[in-house]
């Protein structure tokens, strides 16, 4: 058999198992880890391209963050943009399993008080939409994509070996 024929045969042999894998707890763990990796990277101030998230421009906003430094979270700095003022938007992020994949999104949950103490006018999904117009954080970086492939590959190899 030619190598390409062997590959097609393996693909055929594992088709049902791959469909089952897509709804398994193992694949859900891949999604959950992808979400963790995404949030870690954004909190460290990186865009999907791994360049720094656009710096904060408003002096008034930087001063507001300075006054509320203790609320900015463990990696928060007043002058650095890392999508974390109150942390509510990133905390509202969830994953959703799909038939053969998954997506990440910001859930439209209600917000508690804003950093200024003002009552929130937008929910978290709306804040995310507004935020991403200026800072396009909502995508995977190359290392994140590679990690997803690596994790899925590892699971698939186990499936292939079991099917032998």
């Amino acid at each position, binding site marked *: 058999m030619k190598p390409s024929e*062997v590959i097609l045969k393996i693909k055929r042999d594992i088709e049902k198992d791959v469909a089952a894998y897509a709804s398994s707890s193992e694949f859900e763990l891949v999604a959950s880890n992808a979400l963790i990796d995404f949030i870690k990277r954004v909190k*460290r101030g*990186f865009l999907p391209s*791994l360049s720094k998230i656009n710096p904060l421009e408003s002096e008034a906003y930087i001063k507001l963050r300075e006054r509320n430094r203790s609320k900015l979270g463990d990696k928060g700095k007043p002058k650095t943009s890392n999508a974390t003022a109150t942390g509510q938007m990133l905390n509202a992020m969830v994953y959703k399993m799909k038939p053969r994949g998954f997506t990440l*999104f910001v859930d439209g949950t209600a917000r508690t008080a804003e950093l200024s103490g003002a009552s929130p006018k937008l929910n978290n999904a709306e804040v995310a939409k507004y935020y991403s117009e200026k800072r396009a954080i909502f995508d*995977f970086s190359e290392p994140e*994509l590679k990690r997803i492939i*690596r994790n899925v590959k590892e699971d698939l190899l186990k499936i292939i070996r079991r099917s032998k």
Partner: protein
Amino acid sequence: MAKFKPYFEIDIPKEYGPDERRAIAAEIIDEIIKRTESGLDANGDKFQKYSKEYAKEKGQSNVDLTFSGDMLAQIELLQERSGKLRIGIDPGYEGIGKVEGNVLGTYGNNSPVTKPRNFLGITENELKRITKNYPVDDKAERKQRVAEITTADIVAREILNQVGFDDEA
């Protein structure tokens, strides 16, 4: 001081063909990244701890050499030929100074300022575990393994096409 080489070379049996060498290299690279993320160096020893300041900036104390994730994602097969693999990072990579700092413990200095965190390498046991799937005396078994690795990669990329971000639920 000798010029820093951001790679390592491994001797492998000359019986392995190009497809097998590439498949073995892919498995080695995955193993290096997995091991590094678990906090172990190229000898299988625990990495030197981060300084308190850096751990605070990073937001974690466990050492995984992953800040943006870029450095480990750069590890690749640089060269393969009969009996030999060269794995590492392209010397032209913009973060090569970071690689050198970790591997040699120099971090921008001429000599080491801390114990190196060398992640570029593979232990004998790791290599044995990988190459046992490519028995020298069983070409059919080796071909099967290459096909399995290739299939897993193809299917994983198909799944990746269904992965992304949504505006909302």
